[in-house]
């Protein structure tokens, strides 16, 4: 199992109960949609996986690491095995597309020659080899998200966590991103993706986990979106 949650509770400092006893297993190579209304607990679910938050109660393991008991100095090493993608891309604005991707490899102190080779490889995979020198501000939204995806996969993580990766993109560009994620999934990476995109979920059928009010209300293989918007 890549992700194991057993009776996970998350209560924030202001008293909000974001998750109320969530248990779920996500296996190697799965592609999971996380759906549900805004504020249902999807973002908390994802933040727990890459250890931006710690569970208040319960057992959570990612890639075999016990997230709740993780020592502060071990956190970076757990994150290196998890790629994260956001709705707002979160690229470093002063660095070129190439540098943004290479940065994730510099962090793990990979040899320079390997960085150059692998970065060009993933740029090619996301179809942006020609624009490697462009700054994020010179790229379209879809292109920026491709750079973010390239950064997320450059270190061959076992799992990718994507928080509404198509939220800021037009339908056509969104499909391009989905094809890319599917391709990455085919190559053996687990993908957990929170989304509000009904069309995508209903067309590109995968496992669907629906969260409402901090509880899992539905977990279907090849499921549907299930909400009107």
């Amino acid at each position, binding site marked *: 199992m890549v992700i194991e949650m057993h009776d996970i509770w998350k209560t924030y400092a202001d008293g909000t109960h974001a998750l109320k006893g969530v248990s779920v297993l996500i296996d190697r190579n799965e592609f999971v949609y996380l759906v549900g209304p805004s504020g249902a607990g999807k973002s908390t679910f994802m933040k727990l996986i*890459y250890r931006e938050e710690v569970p208040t109660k319960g057992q959570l393991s990612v890639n075999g690491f016990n997230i709740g008991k993780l020592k502060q100095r071990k956190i*970076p090493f757990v994150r*290196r095995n998890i790629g994260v993608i956001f709705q707002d891309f*979160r690229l470093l604005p*002063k660095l070129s597309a190439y540098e943004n991707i290479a940065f994730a490899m510099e*962090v793990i*102190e990979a040899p320079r020659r390997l960085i150059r080779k692998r970065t060009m490889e993933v740029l090619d995979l996301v179809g942006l080899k020609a624009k490697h020198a462009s700054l994020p501000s010179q790229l379209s939204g879809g292109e920026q998200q491709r750079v973010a995806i390239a950064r997320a996969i450059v*270190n061959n993580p076992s799992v990718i966590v994507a928080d509404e990766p198509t939220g800021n993109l037009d339908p056509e560009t969104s499909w391009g991103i989905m094809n890319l994620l599917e391709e990455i999934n085919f190559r053996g990476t687990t993908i957990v993706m929170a989304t509000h995109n009904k069309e995508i979920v209903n067309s590109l059928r995968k496992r669907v986990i629906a969260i409402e009010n901090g509880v899992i209300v539905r977990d279907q293989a090849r499921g549907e979106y299930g909400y009107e918007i």
Partner: protein
Amino acid sequence: MRFSTILRHIREGALNIVRNGWMSFASISSIFISLFILGVFMLLALNINNLTKQIESQVQIRVFLSLNIEQAKKDELLNQIGNLPEVSKVTPVSKEEGLEMLRENLGKDGATLLEGYDKENNPLPDSLTVEVADPEQIGFVAKKIKAIGDNDATAPIMSVKYGQGAVETMFKVTKAVRNVGLVIVLGLALTAMFLISNTIKMTIFARRREIGIMKLVGATNYFIRWPFFIEGALIGLIGSGITAAVLLFGYSRLVAVSQFELGLMMIKLVTLQESGLLVGSLLIGLGTAIGIWGSTISVRKYLKV
């Protein structure tokens, strides 16, 4: 840490100054302004210190000998006083020289007063001029000299004068001036530290997202810190280096231009050779330290993600 990683940190630190050009400019400007003011006051304090020392060193004791003293006794006194540990120099002044000095001091108007007094008819006694190694000891040394005269049956010393009262007051004033100078310099140094570190904090606040992203891709805290550390040091070094260069060049011009005018007033500025190394290294050391301190403190705040 790999050698290539060390190189990377240095390269990133330097590149970040260029990438965040305006922010770096703001930090360097704030360093320049604060340290420049501080430097001006440091030079001022150095000169005041020097000037008061000059004034203090000019105080001396005049020992007036009795009129009918013999040459042998004179030599004996000269030896005795010269052997006192606090005394740096004793110069005998004959009555003829004394008269000449008096004429000079009194000037044209006084000359009439001294008319008729000459070599044959000189009312002044022979005297000794005594200089003291530590000017603050002057009262104590004067008492010692007086005691030598009092203990001698032939009463060879008529009086001992050093401007009692006036000298003590002057020392109080010069000491106060020096202390005030020191307090102002320290106060300015503290102000500079806060001003500069605040500017640096602001520039790093603008980059907290950047730090968040670094953490997200799995950068360790040290990996994030190093380039900021180098960036802070470089900004401090550049800012204080420019300050030291401008300040010391300006000061050397000031010394050259004012030499004649101030020389007429018997004031001699501390030369660049005497002050440059001290002021320059203090400014650059302080600037670099503040640069490192400011960036290290601020980064730590955003590392807890």
